[in-house]
């Protein structure tokens, strides 16, 4: 019911935007959903209504024609294109409200619901809603990871853990064709698509080392050059080029390899694209009166900077703390309250410390100590983006018991460490998604998930890699429970308002 309401609200908001555009141009605006092969022009500036305001995309050097562009054209027989799961209106990710809207409009025939990963398992009856419940209810795409893990050359990695199935509500991990004991063993995990934008920051290398590994950054085997280590939830590919090949072969069911020209065109598009929330329905423009919200600041700012040694993270809203009283008095109470709340939220994000414990990637193996007192910016430390300047694989506990919220719709695995026990969980770990461990084969990495960009959040609920936070408040509540932070109601509201302004 709530989902239906949010779909109607989104459609309504879209209609408002559509009506104003219609009045201006006297032509019906295109739908908020981009179908593959439509041949639209991607403008230099593109706004979409989202549940809390407007998300804006800026394309450096735009507009760009998308007809024949490999990001926007279906590449394989399932009719999917990159844009299917990286929708501009959803901050280049996928909002569950738009997934549901698409199901209501097109049903299982829409390429979004392709059997390979838009359903809970390809072996399920594809015409039934229940077969697509993880995508429809939680915005989750199926990822089939090889077991044992393979390195970038396809060679098996010797894992220091075994994995067995405890519970399999989708049936895919026990499936004779797709499962863990099939002829081609795979582990199905279910994750949110990551936003395809702001890559200047995601690819940036602030330091030459990964302190979580105690080593220099890994090298891209193709170019021999170091990589940021911040791509994909499980870090399974080092570069965008490798990600494209991985996605083309899996999600798009593309039968031939992407050629160099295709990759170059996709890279060119992705690296020119910036996304962030531009205005808030309560607070108005996020770049008003000296504030620097919105994607333009991203477009103009250097990437990979550590907030603690430069521009403090999310200090874009500091100007609102210094608005003269006379100017403030001219604002509506609603705008004033929102701006004050966002500015306070940024302070809470940076300054409110709490004890972080038993989180691999933070409390081990780096040497920060277990526990360590710090704030949100300990990990979300990159200026403007709030991702990790270092490769950001951290186990917040979102996928591992006992910290994970109940998620009975997801598979549950038992991992048994065969070498040294896990530094925080011991020899046996119950997990819904081993995360980075499915790339490295290391028990110590079970549940570690790469931090991601915090921009354009309002347009792409739900959150966390497994979608367990249904809304922004859900994120704050999870952290509050996990680390016993004790946020006040005001602090929670302020953090939510900060995030909806990003």
């Amino acid at each position, binding site marked *: 019911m709530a989902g239906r309401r949010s779909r109607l609200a989104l459609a309504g908001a879209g209609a408002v935007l559509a009506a104003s555009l219609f009045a201006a141009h006297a032509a019906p605006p295109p739908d908020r959903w981009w179908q593959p092969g439509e041949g639209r022009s991607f403008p230099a500036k593109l706004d979409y209504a989202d549940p809390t305001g407007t998300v804006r995309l800026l394309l450096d050097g735009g507009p760009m024609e998308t007809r024949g562009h490999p990001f926007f054209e279906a590449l394989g027989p399932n009719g999917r294109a990159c844009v299917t799961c990286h929708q501009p209106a959803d901050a280049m990710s996928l909002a569950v409200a738009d997934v549901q809207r698409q199901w209501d409009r097109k049903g299982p025939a829409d390429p979004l619901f392709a059997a390979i990963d838009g359903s809970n398992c390809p072996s399920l009856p594809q015409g039934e809603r229940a077969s697509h419940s993880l995508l429809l209810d939680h915005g989750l795409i199926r990822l089939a990871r090889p077991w044992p893990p393979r390195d970038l050359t396809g060679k098996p990695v010797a894992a220091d853990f075994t994995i067995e199935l405890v519970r399999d509500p989708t049936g895919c991990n026990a499936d004779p064709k797709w499962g863990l004991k099939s002829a081609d063993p795979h582990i199905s995990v279910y994750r949110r698509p990551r936003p395809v934008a702001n890559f200047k920051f995601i690819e940036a290398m602030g330091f030459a*080392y990964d*302190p979580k590994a105690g*080593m*220099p950054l890994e090298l891209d085997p193709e170019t021999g050059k170091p990589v940021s280590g911040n791509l994909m939830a499980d870090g399974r590919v080092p570069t965008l080029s490798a990600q494209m090949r991985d996605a083309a072969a899996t999600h798009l069911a593309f039968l031939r390899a992407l050629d160099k020209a295709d990759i170059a065109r996709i890279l060119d598009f992705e690296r020119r694209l910036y996304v962030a929330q531009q205005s808030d329905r309560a607070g108005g423009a996020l770049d008003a009166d000296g504030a620097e919200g919105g994607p333009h600041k991203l477009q103009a700012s250097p990437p990979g*900077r550590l907030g603690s040694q430069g521009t403090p993270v999310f200090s874009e809203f500091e100007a609102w703390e210094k608005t003269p009283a006379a100017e403030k008095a001219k604002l509506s109470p609603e705008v004033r309250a929102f701006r004050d709340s966002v500015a306070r939220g940024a302070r809470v994000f940076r300054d409110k410390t709490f004890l972080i414990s*038993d989180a691999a990637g933070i*409390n081990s193996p780096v040497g920060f100590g*277990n526990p360590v*007192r710090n704030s949100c910016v300990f990990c979300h430390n990159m200026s403007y983006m709030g991702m990790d*300047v270092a490769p950001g694989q951290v186990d917040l506990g979102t996928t591992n018991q006992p910290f994970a919220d109940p998620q009975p719709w997801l598979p549950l695995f038992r991992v048994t460490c065969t070498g040294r026990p896990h530094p925080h969980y011991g020899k046996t770990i119950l997990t819904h998604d081993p995360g980075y461990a499915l790339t490295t084969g290391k028990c110590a990495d079970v549940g570690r998930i790469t931090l991601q960009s915090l921009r354009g959040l309002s347009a792409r609920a739900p959150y966390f890699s497994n979608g367990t936070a249904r809304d922004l408040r859900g994120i704050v509540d999870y952290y509050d429970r996990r680390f016993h932070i004790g946020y006040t109601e005001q602090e929670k509201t302020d953090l939510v308002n900060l995030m909806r302004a990003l």
Partner: protein
Amino acid sequence: MKAALALLALAATGAADTQAAVRFVACPIYRDTDAGRKSGCWLADDPATGTRYDVTSAPTKPDWNHAVLVEGRPDPAAGNPCGGLVLEPARVSVLDEGCTRFMLEAEGYAGRKFALPRRNVRPLYEARTPPARPFAARVVTVPFDYDSSFVSYQLADYYLDEAINYALDVAPARITVTGYAATRADMVSGHKLAEDDGLARTRAELVAHALTLRGVTAADIRVTTGTDSPSADEAFDGLDAPSRRRVEVRIEPGSATR
């Protein structure tokens, strides 16, 4: 009360002007002082004397679920911010042995406001001053925690970065990477501590790999091991026991094997 504790601790460890290094194994105690980020205190009691030491200055901090090997030198002039005799310099190695986690409240102790350690790796976007010519042969020593080949944050990584930058700046160069391990057994707090023979090579190979990841030519690097011995290198701040766990990177400019 706090001053009395400090005096008691001093009396237990000997005269203030000749502070001998201490070395013991204990379960760590976290004191939740809050002077901002990274401001909590780490304490550990020497089981031989009962003296409570403040080991917070160690680059590697304890894990409250595991025993720690503490190595350090008391610094009575450092005050008493945490409720223990300050070890400065200090080194902590996290051991496999489990401990019951224990946390104390601040109890009036102020803790320390975090300050960026002197030995920290600088970001890539900062300009770096290259070494002046003529280039000289140089040895950079990378320290390690006990029974570990992990390059520790804000200590070992600083020296590793220094070695790599120098190797790149003066290239071509002949580089000899020599690993050491503390293989001779010591009894510490009733624990027999001896590193595995193979750890010296593991450490050396890891450092050599790090050099190549940053762009040093693999063919210019020779990996070898040395016998258990102490070092007076600055990386150890005068502590003998930790100095047995190291990798020495010798960089000889203009002597590449290529």
